[in-house]
């Protein structure tokens, strides 16, 4: 290099990662979570009981498992509205197999396998054929649950082998349920995957500008396909846990989960249009939603009111910062 193109040194960062973290959405959300926790503990004497808290975790663990994969999918600029229907189909497959006498490992394998297959189907249509993910997954949302209705009609599977109950009802140690531990493990795995690997970096690049990512040598369609696969797999995992916890399968199982999953992801600070967001944000959002649901439950507020609150949360977390900015102008 000749001297005149020898440029100046540009500093790596101007703000430290810590300073940035303190000013982030996630930090604010953590404050909210702590505030709700404190408010709840004052509002009800039953709140601080470890077993009650552990019970309450079932409110969000299954949804959060899907939310981790959904967060990555949304960061990459796609969405999967069929997750709740994948739960229904996977649960139906497991129920049918259980009726035919399959044992626990086979059931789990079938549940996860169905999830993977459904994810692959979505992924093929979106990444393989270039169809828009919103309509494709609205279609598969009907298709997957529709298959459950064809199989089950107004019937239900209720015969599951004895050991199968562990995934939704068992405890690993003291108050720590299998689901809670699995949730924690998946949080770490997805946190590492999104924030510490090449795959995660490519996910962000695709979400910010898929064309430029492709022009940078990223295998965009392959990554989008894998993300749908992961979302399907996580829905399969959630299906195993939920079916195990309920001990029965109806075609309506998990109806409306997609809304709560998307709400959790958006509440966690993931940009619904793709490009930014974090797994730790989703983890905190899961706790916030779990705590709100639990707290209202202690106050005997009916379930449908909670769904109003979830709807308000979904719109509110996006609307409030925008209103704030408008007001300041």
């Amino acid at each position, binding site marked *: 290099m000749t001297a005149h193109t020898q440029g100046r040194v540009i500093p790596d960062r101007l703000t430290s990662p810590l300073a940035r973290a303190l000013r982030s959405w996630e930090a604010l959300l953590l404050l909210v979570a702590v505030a709700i926790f404190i408010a709840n503990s004052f509002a009800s004497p039953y709140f601080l009981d470890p077993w009650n808290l552990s019970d309450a975790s079932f409110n969000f663990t299954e949804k959060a498992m899907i939310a981790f994969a959904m967060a990555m999918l949304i960061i990459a600029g796609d969405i999967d509205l069929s997750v709740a229907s994948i739960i229904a189909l996977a649960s139906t497959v497991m129920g049918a197999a259980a009726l035919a006498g399959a044992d626990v490992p086979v059931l789990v394998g079938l549940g996860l396998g169905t999830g993977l297959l459904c994810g692959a189907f979505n992924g093929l249509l979106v990444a393989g054929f270039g169809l828009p993910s919103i*309509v494709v997954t609205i279609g*598969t949302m009907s298709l997957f649950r529709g298959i459950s209705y064809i199989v089950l009609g107004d019937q239900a599977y209720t015969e599951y082998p004895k050991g199968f109950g562990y995934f939704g009802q068992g405890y690993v140690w003291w108050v720590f349920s299998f689901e809670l531990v699995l949730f924690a493990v998946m949080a770490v795995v997805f946190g590492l995957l999104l924030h510490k690997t090449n795959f995660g970096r490519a996910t962000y690049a695709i979400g910010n500008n898929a064309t430029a990512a492709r022009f940078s040598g990223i295998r965009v369609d392959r990554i989008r396909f894998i993300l749908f696969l992961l979302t399907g797999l996580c829905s399969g995992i959630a299906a195993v846990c939920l079916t195990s916890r309920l001990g029965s399968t109806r075609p309506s199982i998990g109806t409306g989960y997609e809304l709560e999953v998307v709400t959790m992801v958006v509440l966690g600070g993931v940009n619904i249009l793709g490009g930014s967001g974090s797994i730790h944000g989703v983890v905190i959002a899961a706790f916030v939603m779990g705590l709100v649901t639990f707290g209202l439950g202690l106050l005997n507020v009916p379930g449908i009111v909670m769904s109003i609150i979830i709807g308000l949360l979904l*719109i509110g977390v996006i*609307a409030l910062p925008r209103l704030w900015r408008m007001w300041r102008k």
Partner: protein
Amino acid sequence: MSALLKSREAILALAIALLLVVIASRFPAFVTPGNLASVFTDTSPLILLALGQMVVILTKCIDLSVTANLALCGMIAALMNGAGVPLPLILLLVVALGAVLGAVNGLLVWKLDIPSIVVTLGTMTIYRGIIFLLTDGKWVNAHQMSEGFKAFPRAVFLGLPVMAWIAILGIVAFVLLVNRTPLGRAFYAVGGNPHAAVYTGISVGRTQFAAFVLSGALAGFVGYLWVARYAVAYVDIASGFELDVVAACVIGGIAIAGGAGSVAGCVMGALFLGIMKNALPVVGISPFWQMAISGAAILIAIAFNARGSGPKGRLILKTPEVRA
């Protein structure tokens, strides 16, 4: 001729005709004028909702809250009827309420620039939740509704029920609206090229707002029709029906990316689903198949619509190797 064959509407019409022929070959009674009229009547709510959804989709949005809006307005119509409010006033009020609920969606999309899918996923649960707050989950049953309230959609006029006439009126109104008014053309402009729309003095947000208000007003009106026809109102009526509404549009060739589609396509998409739904019990298939079939129909329609519109190569060579 080849241009006609290429149009989505023609292919869809062909598919519907084929469907009818297949059904008729086994069950000729299905294609009698009387039965077809009743299929049309049965499909009227779907047609009306799909027309509203169409203009929303044309502007690059989606309204998943239509059926929650429908359920809330239907419940309020039933409650007003119980309180002795005269029918014309009820009709006026449910349309107004539906428009207001649609306007809430529209305002959030327009003023706060929130993606419509998020807004309507949210309002979908909120609107249904409000029904619960109003009624504590209780049903309004047939015996709690006045005869006049229940009879209006079924009243026969010139051989067709009022419900069917309303659908026909809706179709005519939308043909005029979409093709012959500045607002109608603005729906296409905003969805087709939002950037350019701004330069021609069309406000993207305001047009999207108008689409949501229209969709909401129709949902409110259909809410009354629905509750009166089935003579029952409760929290979960028409739950999940929003997917059928979107399906009708997608099958009808309304481009989900906005800016393209026609009233004819939209109506035929709704009719396709309506015929399917009514034919299933006739041909001896369990109604539980319906959901999967409409899901499959959506997927086939999207794949079909995308066919040829994908990123083809540019046509540069004078004598290309294969004709595109």
